[in-house]
Structures are given as structure tokens and as C-alpha cells.
């Protein structure tokens, strides 16, 4: 269903764009009629007023639907004006012409402004579908503003390894042109000194900030200057971080991670259980319009399959259903250990408080009475689902890397295999291990070792898709489950990751070093139980290690 909503949004965006083009033609016609109106009298004038009324009525009735709410407001005012004059409630005269033509100008302005905004959103929409491609899922675009070519090149190289697209400019005066020609960016990393001028970068960024669409761009200052004045200047242009050279690349990636991760918060998964299919579909639409992923179960007997496949973060449950009622279902869900903590919200027409409380005793967390306003439903669901996600993250995630822990990864492999068996689709499993990791710890200390592990975790997150499961299996060992991916494709992806990882330069106390990884890949089409598949991937990893490390081996 999520896919359908996306195309719906895309279609709507297209329609908005078409409307934006048409509206100008209509407004030109309207202006023409208003011109004739000013020179007419008697019945001709009445006819023309009627025409203006009909045109503005149409605009009022369609504007907001296509994302032009101000057009609706102004057109409605004009329509009322015409109606009042035609009904004789307002005296006709020159002031009417003036009023209408002034409003017509307002209409043009409203159409212009919102048209630009709709273009912006419509060009944004297709990007939302990108996350299903390997290796392009988490791209953020950066500009590095740096006069020193070697520093710029170094940042460029490292950032590209982490999946950022990087553009370099050597002077602030080129910033605006670059953005105009090559499009907007997510972040700007800037130095402060250019040809001895410590003001040019900040004053350019201040101008950059004044433009509305740039207000979300993250600015990171990266400079040799460390004075109160320069730091204050950076704060004033809204810089989110101030890093003093020489730069620790890990700090920079951390800062950039924070922004990219914020934008990539996965949508909440909500399971709707309701025997009334059309009602369930509408609940879905409401939640999807708020960006959530939904699944519907009409027949409670199908519950377990969907529950395991979808792993919801909240369940919306109808209280009265044929076969078994909502309370019983809640009790059944609670019997399963892994769902003991999931929020269950009853959605029902039941307004009897006693019955509501009884339902809660049997495992419900909340009770929403139908009909419920869309905004209430959305916020109620969002609050509970986000709390559940946070709580669960303590249990299922590795605290150092934020990746799934060993137990969870294993469990997700089981779930994924069950899903693949049913859907007859492809799936690949990869096991990764950092080469000679003990040497890193022994030579540079555990803190540096941790940084290497975090770097690989970050790299995996950047390079894999949001649907892929990435786990830290312990120590320096990682695993990744790639749905809908064949063996050859998986091997290509991990070869890219291996290559990128080997090119990351780690710095510590004046030392610079590289680390490599080995990887084994196996496909579900060759091994179709969790144990066989894991063993095959491990065997491939072992081969990669014994054949000299720093390589990806496929097991088939």
C-alpha cells in the first residue's frame, strides 16, 4: 500500500503542476473580462458580472484542491462581491470595478507564489522513490567551500566513501552560482579564511540563508580560526558545528550523520485489524497521508502471518468482529513474548466506559471512539508508536553502532526467510568481518578500534537500502540481509562497500592507517533454511579470509 500512496502523491503533484500552468490562462481571461466590464453598462454589464462570478466560483472551488488555498480565498471574495452586486445588495459602480481588479491582481500573485511551491514539491516527489536502489539510498549532497585544494580533496574523498555526493568550490563568491546551476544541497562545509578575508564566507552564507529554500541546509564550519568573534559569526549564520583544523573526519561524519539520519527516520508501521474492509482502508489512507506504513488484516485468523512479516510498531484493533472479538485478539497477541510490549489501540464505536476499561484490562493500551478525527488518530498513533520504537531500540539494537544486535538479526533472518518462501522472491545474506582487527586495537587502542567499527556501521547504513537489515553480530563481525537481491547483485554491492572501506583513512596521534574487510555472500536460492544460509555465508567469509582477505566471496 505504501507504494500506491506514493504514486497517488506523484499523480497529485503532476495534476497540481498542470493546474498551475492552466491557472495563468484562466486569470488572463478573467483580467480581459474585467477590462470589458469596466467599459460596459446595463444588461451587458450584468452578463459580464455573471461571467466573473462563475469564473471565480470555479477557481474558489478548485484552488485549494490543487494546492492553491490563497486562490480559493481571493476568488471566493470576488464571487461574493459579484453575487452581492447582482442581487442588488451592493450598489454597482466604479468602486466595484476597482475592487475586482485589485483582487484579480491578488489572484495572480497567489497563483504565482503557490505555483512555484508546487513545482518545488512536484520535483521533490520522485526522489522519495529512490531508496529502493542499492547504493543510492542515503545520498546527501555536500558543498565543500575550501581554498586549500589538498584539504578539499581529502574531505571529498572521505565523504564520498560514506556515500555523500560532494561538490567543491574554492571561493564563497562561487556559491550562489553553483547552487543555481547544480541544484540545492543538504550541507555546506566551509572554511572561514579566503585570501586573508575572514568575513567573505560568513557574509555570503548570511545572504544564502535569507533565501527561503536554503533554511534547512546544514552549515558546518571547518577552520583554523578559533576566536570568539569567528565562532559568534558562525552561530549567526546558523552553523550547526564548528570544527577546528586539523579535522577529525569521524567528528565531521558524526555531524553529517545526525542530519541525514533525521531525514531518514523510517515511517511507523501500523497494523489495522478490522472486519469492515472499507473502514480499514480508510484508516489506512488517513495514516498513510501522515507518512506511515500500514497493513490491513480483515480476517483475524490471518493475523500471525501479517504480524511476523510486517512487524508492526502499533496495532489498531476493532473491538467487535465476527469469529473472535478485539479483546480476545489482544490477549492472543500478548501471549507471544515478542509482542508483549507492542501498543494495542482499540478503535470502536463503543462509548460505554466500563466496557472500554474491560478491553484495556485484556491488553489494550488505549481506546479511541469512532468516529475519530483524522488528526486525533494520527497523533495518538504517532505518540505511542514512537515511544514503542524508542523502548524497543534499547532491546534490539547494539548500543555502539545503532545496528541490530545478534539476537534480533537472527530473528529477522527467520522472518525474512518465511516471507521469501511465501512470496517466492529473492534474498541474499552477507557476513562481514574487519581484517586484522586485533592489530588495530593493539596498535592504537580500543577507542580507535571503536571508531573503525562505527565507521563500517555508518558505511553500511549509507550504502544499503532502508529495507535491508544490518546487524552487528559481535566484535568486528557484521551481517546484512538483503531482500529481493540475487547473489551477483549482492556481490557487486559488497565489493563497492569493501572498496570504499579500504580507502577510508583513519587518523590517530599523527598516524594514518587503512583497514580492510572480508565478506562472504550466499543466496536464498541456493540455501533455503536460516542455518544453511548462515553457514554458507560464513563458509564464504572463511574462504575470503584464507585467500588473502580484503575480498568478497560468493558461495553457490
Amino acid at each position, binding site marked *: 500500500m505504501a507504494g500506491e500512496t506514493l504514486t*497517488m502523491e506523484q499523480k*497529485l503533484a503532476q*495534476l497540481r503542476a498542470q493546474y498551475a500552468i*492552466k491557472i495563468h490562462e484562466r486569470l488572463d481571461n478573467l483580467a480581459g473580462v474585467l477590462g470589458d466590464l469596466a467599459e460596459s453598462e446595463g444588461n451587458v454589464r450584468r452578463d459580464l458580472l455573471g461571467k466573473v462570478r462563475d469564473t471565480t466560483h470555479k477557481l474558489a*472551488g*478548485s484552488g485549494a484542491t490543487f494546492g492553491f488555498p490563497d486562490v480559493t480565498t481571493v476568488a471566493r471574495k470576488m*464571487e461574493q462581491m459579484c453575487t452581492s452586486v447582482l442581487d442588488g445588495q451592493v450598489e454597482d459602480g466604479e468602486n466595484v470595478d476597482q475592487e475586482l481588479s485589485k483582487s484579480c491582481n491578488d489572484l495572480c500573485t497567489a497563483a504565482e507564489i503557490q505555483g512555484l511551491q508546487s513545482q518545488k514539491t512536484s520535483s521533490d516527489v520522485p526522489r522519495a522513490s529512490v531508496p529502493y536502489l542499492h547504493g543510492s539510498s542515503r545520498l546527501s549532497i555536500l558543498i565543500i567551500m575550501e581554498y586549500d585544494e589538498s584539504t578539499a580533496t581529502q574531505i571529498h574523498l572521505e565523504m564520498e566513501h560514506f556515500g555523500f555526493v560532494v561538490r567543491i568550490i574554492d571561493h564563497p563568491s562561487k556559491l550562489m552560482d553553483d547552487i543555481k546551476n547544480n541544484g540545492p544541497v543538504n550541507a555546506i562545509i566551509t572554511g572561514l579564511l579566503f585570501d586573508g578575508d575572514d568575513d567573505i564566507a560568513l557574509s555570503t552564507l548570511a545572504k544564502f540563508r535569507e533565501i527561503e529554500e536554503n533554511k534547512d541546509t546544514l552549515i558546518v564550519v571547518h577552520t583554523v580560526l578559533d576566536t570568539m568573534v569567528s565562532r559568534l559569526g558562525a552561530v549567526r549564520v546558523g552553523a550547526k558545528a564548528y570544527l577546528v583544523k586539523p579535522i577529525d573526519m569521524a567528528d565531521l561524519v558524526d555531524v553529517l550523520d545526525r542530519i541525514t539520519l533525521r531525514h531518514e527516520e523510517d515511517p511507523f508501521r501500523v497494523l489495522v485489524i478490522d472486519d469492515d474492509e472499507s473502514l480499514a482502508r*480508510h484508516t489506512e489512507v488517513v495514516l498513510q497521508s501522515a507518512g506511515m506504513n500500514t497493513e490491513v488484516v480483515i480476517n483475524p485468523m490471518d493475523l500471525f502471518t501479517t504480524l511476523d512479516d510486517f512487524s508492526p510498531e502499533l496495532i489498531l484493533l476493532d473491538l467487535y468482529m465476527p469469529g473472535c472479538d478485539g479483546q480476545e485478539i489482544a490477549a492472543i497477541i500478548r501471549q507471544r513474548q515478542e509482542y508483549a510490549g507492542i501498543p494495542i489501540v482499540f478503535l470502536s464505536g463503543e462509548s460505554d466506559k466500563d466496557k472500554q476499561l474491560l478491553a484495556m484490562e485484556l491488553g489494550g493500551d488505549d481506546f479511541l471512539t469512532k468516529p475519530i478525527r*483524522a488528526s486525533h488518530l494520527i497523533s495518538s498513533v504517532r505518540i505511542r508508536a514512537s515511544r514503542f520504537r524508542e523502548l524497543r531500540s534499547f532491546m534490539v539494537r547494539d548500543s555502539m553502532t545503532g545496528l541490530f544486535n545478534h539476537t534480533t538479526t537472527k530473528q529477522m533472518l527467520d522472518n525474512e526467510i518465511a516471507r521469501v518462501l511465501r512470496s517466492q522472491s529473492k534474498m541474499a545474506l552477507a557476513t562481514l568481518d574487519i581484517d586484522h582487527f586485533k592489530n588495530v586495537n593493539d596498535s592504537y587502542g580500543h577507542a580507535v578500534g571503536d571508531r573503525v567499527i562505527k565507521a563500517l556501521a555508518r558505511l553500511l547504513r549509507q550504502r544499503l537500502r532502508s529495507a535491508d537489515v544490518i546487524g552487528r553480530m559481535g566484535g568486528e563481525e557484521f551481517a546484512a540481509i538483503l531482500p529481493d537481491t540475487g547473489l551477483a547483485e549482492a556481490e557487486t554491492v559488497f565489493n563497492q562497500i569493501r572498496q570504499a572501506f579500504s580507502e577510508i583513512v583513519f587518523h590517530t596521534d599523527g598516524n594514518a592507517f587503512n583497514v580492510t574487510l572480508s565478506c562472504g555472500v550466499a543466496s536464498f536460492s541456493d540455501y533455503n533454511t536460516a542455518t544453511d544460509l548462515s553457514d554458507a555465508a560464513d563458509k564464504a567469509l572463511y574462504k575470503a579470509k584464507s585467500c588473502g582477505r580484503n575480498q568478497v566471496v560468493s558461495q553457490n
Partner: protein
Amino acid sequence: MSDAELSKILYVEDDPDIQIVAKMALEAVGGYVLHVCSSGQEAITHGADFAPDLILLDVMMPDMDGPTTLKNLRMIPSLISTPAVFMTAKVMPSDVERYKELGAVDVIAKPFDPMTLATRIHEIWSQHHGG
């Protein structure tokens, strides 16, 4: 009546832009089947063949407006009691009363939000069928 399913909607609207967006909102989002007529006359000629569960009409249309169209549709035996809903950009309380007297079960304000139109229709349908 409470188990009646809403599936087919006869939709009378002269503005092609609104037709497209409403069709998407009701078919893609709502899962209903829509038959669109661009004028009251077209609805009167072909509407009954479609055997709609619900009639959705724009109020202000050239040639024949929504209320007149509905009056004429009511003369077709199979459409005598089909629930009707008006859509209008001019929702005055007095008008709403007048539309209801004409046999409309509810009135939807224009401009509508394409993402929630289906929900609104569903609410109206459920209320009309007592829940």
C-alpha cells in the same frame, strides 16, 4: 441496511480538472468505482444504466445545475431513493437545508482535500446507513 457496501458512485461535475482529481481520490484512494458525467443531461440519459449506490453532484454547473439534475434523476424509478451528496464551493447553512430538502443526505464543501475525500464519503455513507 447496515451491511450495505458502497461501491459505485455516479459523479456529475462539469470541470474536467476536478473530475480527474476526484476520480483519483475516490478510485485510487477510496477503492470505489466512479462513473463521471460532465453535465446534468448526460447523467439523466446514462446515469441509471450504471446503477449507482450513491450520487455525487456539483451544485453549480452551466445549463443544468446540480439540484435540477437531482430532481430529474429522482424521476427515474431505479434512482428514487439512491442517496445523493452535493459538492459546492458555496456552503451556506440555508443552502444546506435546501439541498437536504431536495433529498441530499449531505453536502461536501469545495475545494476538497483529495487525500481525505474518500474518508468523507465513507463517513457520509456510514451515517446514512446508521453506523
